[in-house]
């Protein structure tokens, strides 16, 4: 296998300009505020990944100089939420699901591609080179303490090339010994259980968990038989091929200096066939294919303090084995890949080493440094390798990453901060420099203003560079890095309000804009094959709102997004039009609202989720319907150590009516979704602390 053609580490003219602009602004600010740096001012609290739980949600705003939202699964405990379900509560983040509610799911942040979103679990990067994006449905959340979503400015502690944003998942690590069992059942054959235990071990603390979940996924839905103009041949079908079995194990230990972690996840999933004309009662059906994924990671690290420098290192090894099986043998209509692909396997292993440090310098500077190296190897096996690609089976990629961030306090009160950061990322010898800058000002204990601007870059992954061994060919030459800029400005307010009584309130409103050049996009290049090219450009702007109101017994939380995602790819002269078209899968409006009422030993909630209509294609021809979903549930403490949760999702069965339909400007049929979604469903969860 050959690595990417190295282009050396020289800056392109455009990068040089960005570098100059950054250095100039950095020096001006430093010069202007240098004298005051000697004043005795309190520095912002250090935030380190894997840090303890933020007891006070108001501290969330200090996690990043940019926009950040924290979702705490504990608030949804017992509701059998998946990670994609939780992320749908986050403004600016769109979950794109394939094959139904429990199928493959990826995230788009502020209109980004899913490949531009980095996902971390306890500091371990989940993005691997064998796939274009992280499948969020494969990450269990039963033992998650919080999910942080960083948009716009990416703090230096995240080394990944996260052009879109970062989803950072932090698992639980109780300080006290505790054993918890959670058992749940739900509609359509859902059964799940989770056992966790935390205790003191040696000089440190230990946490271990085992989880299992199975889902049949067979549900009734209306199938138009693939003939939307014929009313008489529709039928109620029973959806098949949606099932999965998940097993996960997590072990963690840490003391004052050392930390170690190991996890293993196995997800065996059916790959549902598209619905129109399928699932007829009494008619034998073709088997759906299987995708079995095993994922594991082990890591060890040490943190220590030397003088005023807090520093540490980490070693990690991550692996994933992904195996497809058509279950039909080699057939021309194999449901995986293409003709004659029966089995294929993608095995990735990545070894990484990192060094991080932070220290105050003077009284106005707080530096954070991250240096990382990783080596990832991908082994491809199975039919596509030999049928189409002549047996190229091993791929390799090495990454270097250096991040430096300085938090500069610009006033004596420590309420006015300037946070520049620079990042150097090198992949197989080709390096790129990017920078970010953030300004934040707390006007009072209630008001805070944040504004960020920066440049971003992402190297194409192996999947994009070398294809998938089936229908995606290796790129013609080394793909160029995607580059982009983003800016946002937001206001955060916290305080007490008199509204239907005394209430504690918080709200944030952000406006953002991002542009991306050299987007790596897939194009068909022959009747059978396609490959990735650096051809696309996009421009996304929007607004994000997040708000919460807390009364003694009532709570309201809201989130909403308005987004305008536009394809800015120049039209190919004399050919197709791209510029000005809406990006697919980016709804203009989306939002959630949740009302909770606390009572005696429990609480009840009602939740509304809205996702506006959005195009399925890049030429504004076809739309997915808007979605209006209501969920309700009740949580009741049957004893001081046991809680029962019952609930109904999609109370009104809105999903039963979701269709694809042509844009009103065009003629065309309204038809059943390719992958229908189960409508109303019920669940019951018992959660016991032993």
């Amino acid at each position, binding site marked *: 296998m050959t690595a990417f053609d190295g282009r050396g580490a020289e800056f392109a003219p455009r990068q040089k300009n960005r570098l100059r602009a950054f250095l100039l602004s950095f020096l001006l600010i430093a010069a202007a505020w240098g004298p005051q740096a000697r004043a005795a001012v309190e520095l912002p609290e250090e935030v380190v990944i894997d840090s303890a739980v933020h007891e006070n949600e108001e501290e969330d705003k200090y996690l990043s100089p940019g926009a950040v939202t924290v979702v705490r699964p504990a608030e949804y405990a017992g509701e059998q939420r998946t990670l994609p379900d939780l992320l749908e509560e986050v403004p600016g983040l769109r979950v794109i699901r394939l094959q139904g509610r429990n199928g493959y799911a990826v995230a788009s942040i502020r209109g980004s591609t899913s490949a531009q979103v980095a996902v971390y679990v306890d500091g371990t990067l989940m993005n691997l080179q064998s796939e274009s994006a992280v499948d969020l449905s494969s990450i269990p959340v039963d033992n998650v303490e919080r999910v942080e979503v960083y948009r716009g400015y990416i703090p230096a502690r995240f080394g990944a090339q996260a052009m879109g944003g970062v989803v950072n998942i932090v698992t639980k690590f109780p300080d006290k010994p505790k054993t918890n069992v959670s058992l749940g059942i739900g509609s359509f054959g859902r059964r799940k259980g989770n056992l966790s235990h935390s205790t003191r071990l040696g000089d440190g603390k230990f946490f271990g968990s085992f989880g299992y979940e199975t889902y049949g996924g067979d549900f009734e839905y209306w199938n138009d038989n693939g003939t939307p103009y014929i009313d008489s041949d529709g039928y109620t079908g029973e959806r098949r091929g949606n099932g999965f079995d998940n097993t996960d194990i997590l072990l963690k230990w840490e003391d004052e200096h050392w930390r170690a972690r190991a996890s293993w996840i196995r997800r065996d999933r059916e790959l549902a066939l598209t619905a129109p004309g399928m699932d007829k009662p009494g008619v034998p059906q*073709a088997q759906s294919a299987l995708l079995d994924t095993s994922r594991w990671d082990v890591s060890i690290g040490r943190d220590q303090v030397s003088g005023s420098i807090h520093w540490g290192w980490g070693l990690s090894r991550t692996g994933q084995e992904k195996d497809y099986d058509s279950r039909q043998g*080699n057939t021309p209509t194999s449901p995986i890949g293409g003709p004659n692909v029966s089995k294929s396997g993608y095995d990735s292993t990545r070894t990484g080493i990192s060094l991080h440090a932070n220290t105050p310098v003077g009284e106005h500077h707080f530096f954070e440094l991250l240096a990382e190296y990783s080596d990832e190897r991908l082994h491809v096996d199975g039919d596509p390798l030999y049928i189409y690609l002549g047996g190229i089976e091993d791929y390799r990629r090495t990454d270097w990453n250096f991040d430096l961030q300085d938090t500069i306090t610009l006033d004596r009160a420590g309420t006015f901060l300037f946070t520049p950061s620079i990042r150097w990322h090198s992949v197989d010898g080709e390096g790129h420099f990017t920078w970010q800058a953030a300004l934040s000002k707390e006007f009072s204990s209630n008001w805070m203003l944040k504004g960020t601007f920066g440049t971003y870059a992402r190297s194409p992954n192996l999947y994009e560079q070398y294809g998938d061994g089936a229908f995606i060919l290796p790129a013609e030459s080394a793909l160029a890095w995607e580059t982009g800029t983003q800016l946002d400005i937001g206001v955060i307010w916290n305080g007490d309000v008199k509204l239907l009584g005394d209430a504690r309130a918080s709200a944030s409103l952000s406006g953002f804009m991002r542009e991306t050049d050299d987007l790596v996009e897939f194009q*068909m290049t022959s009747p059978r094959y396609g490959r990735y090219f650096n051809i696309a450009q996009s421009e996304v702007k929007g607004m994000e709102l997040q708000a919460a109101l807390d009364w003694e017994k009532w709570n309201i939380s809201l989130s909403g997004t308005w987004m305008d995602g536009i394809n800015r790819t120049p039209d190919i002269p004399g050919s197709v039009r791209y510029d000005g078209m809406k990006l697919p899968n980016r709804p203009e409006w989306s939002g959630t609202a949740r009302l909770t009422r606390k009572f005696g030993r429990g609480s009840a909630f009602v939740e509304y989720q809205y996702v506006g209509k959005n195009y399925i294609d890049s030429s504004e*021809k076809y739309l997915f319907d808007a979605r209006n979903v209501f969920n309700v549930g009740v949580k009741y403490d049957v004893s001081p150590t046991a809680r029962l949760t019952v609930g109904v999702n999609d109370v009104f069965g809105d999903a039963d009516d979701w269709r694809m339909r042509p844009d009103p400007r065009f003629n065309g049929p309204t038809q059943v979704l390719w992958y229908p979604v189960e409508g109303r469903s019920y669940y019951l969860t018992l959660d016991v602390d032993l």
Partner: protein
Amino acid sequence: MRRWKLLALIGIFVSFWSAAASADIFYSATDGSASSFGTISGASYTVRKDLYTLPLGYPTVASFSDLGGKEWVVVENYNWQDSVSSTVDIFDLKDWTKPAGGEYTDWGTNIKGLAVVGDCLYIASFERREAGEEKSGEVIRVDLSGQGSPDKPFEPDGTVYKFSPLEDILRRPAAMEVVGGKIYVLTYTYDGVHTIDAGMGASELFEFDENLELLRSAVIGGGDSGKNTQYMASYGGKLYLGSTGGAQGASSIGAVWEVNPGGTDLEATKIVDLGDIPDLDATARSVYGVSIADDGTALLIVGGYDSENDWSFSSRLYVATASALSAGEYGEPISIPEGTYVESVKYDAKLDVFWCGMSGAGYGNLEARGKSGAILKTITANELGNNIGTFAIIGETPKYEPSVDSASSGGGCNAGIGAFAFLLLAFSALLKIREK
């Protein structure tokens, strides 16, 4: 003078009306996720795009005329997964709000050709799909003489020829033509189990009468060069076939074959061996299309996958004549835009042009080329609504009717000209009456 101005205005109006009512090309345009459909009409190449849309990529389109000469166009909702057969939407060219008679579910799956013989329409279908099973292709007959339901005038009449497997390998129809009242269906075989090289079986030509009784059949060639023959054109009572020579990689060497159905058998004679083209590289050793005009001018697509490197596809376009092909000459190469390739070619007798569907990264134009191969008109993907998918020549379904005179009087375009002529006569008569 005023009379001539009035006549000219009427003429312009009626010409526009005729162009809108009849069309020469019916096409699909797609980004791979959704497709839209449109028509191209007249010598001015008037494009009407986005007449209808579907949420799928690469649907097949076709056209046919009924016994009254009315033109219909066909959209196949091709389902990529096993167990589900395609549905077919049939449209009146004047009504795009929904298909006439709803969907048809028995037209087979992956339509490879339509032909009319006498009162019947014949459909060459790549395969038959039933629950959990796929079967060999079929030829399906539709009685156009009004025997079907008024609501479903184009339902198959039950006469079907089902191809049996060839040594357990499914036979797949690839093209259909009509010569002298007989129906000719070209099939190829690929077992789908082995690698393409090993699994590629023989291609065959089948001859049927109007009742789909099998009259004759023959294997194309005796070795690899006849494998994977998927392209067919008719001219002068003969059939011209194009083969890839196997698995479409660098090791394949395709050929052009000639069949004389009027002869004693259907034996295919290799008339052009692509291995003889001296500067042909490894990426262009297979035939990917052949089309012959009514004066014998032939366009030949020669292309292939670079199986030794990155499986990129490239193709060349050659212009020749049917007689030259018969003499073993493949003609002269025609230049095509850099970075593109010709994906399909069809001759349009009404406009006397060859339509070439172009492809390439981010490129999907439709080109009208004259008989020299020169581009007469490029219709861009933007004008089409998206990258060209598939297209059909309206009013030129392979057809056989006993009376040559009656055959030449049919067709939507002729109907439009007829209406124009009628209106001119009527207005002329009216003006004469006023003069009196």
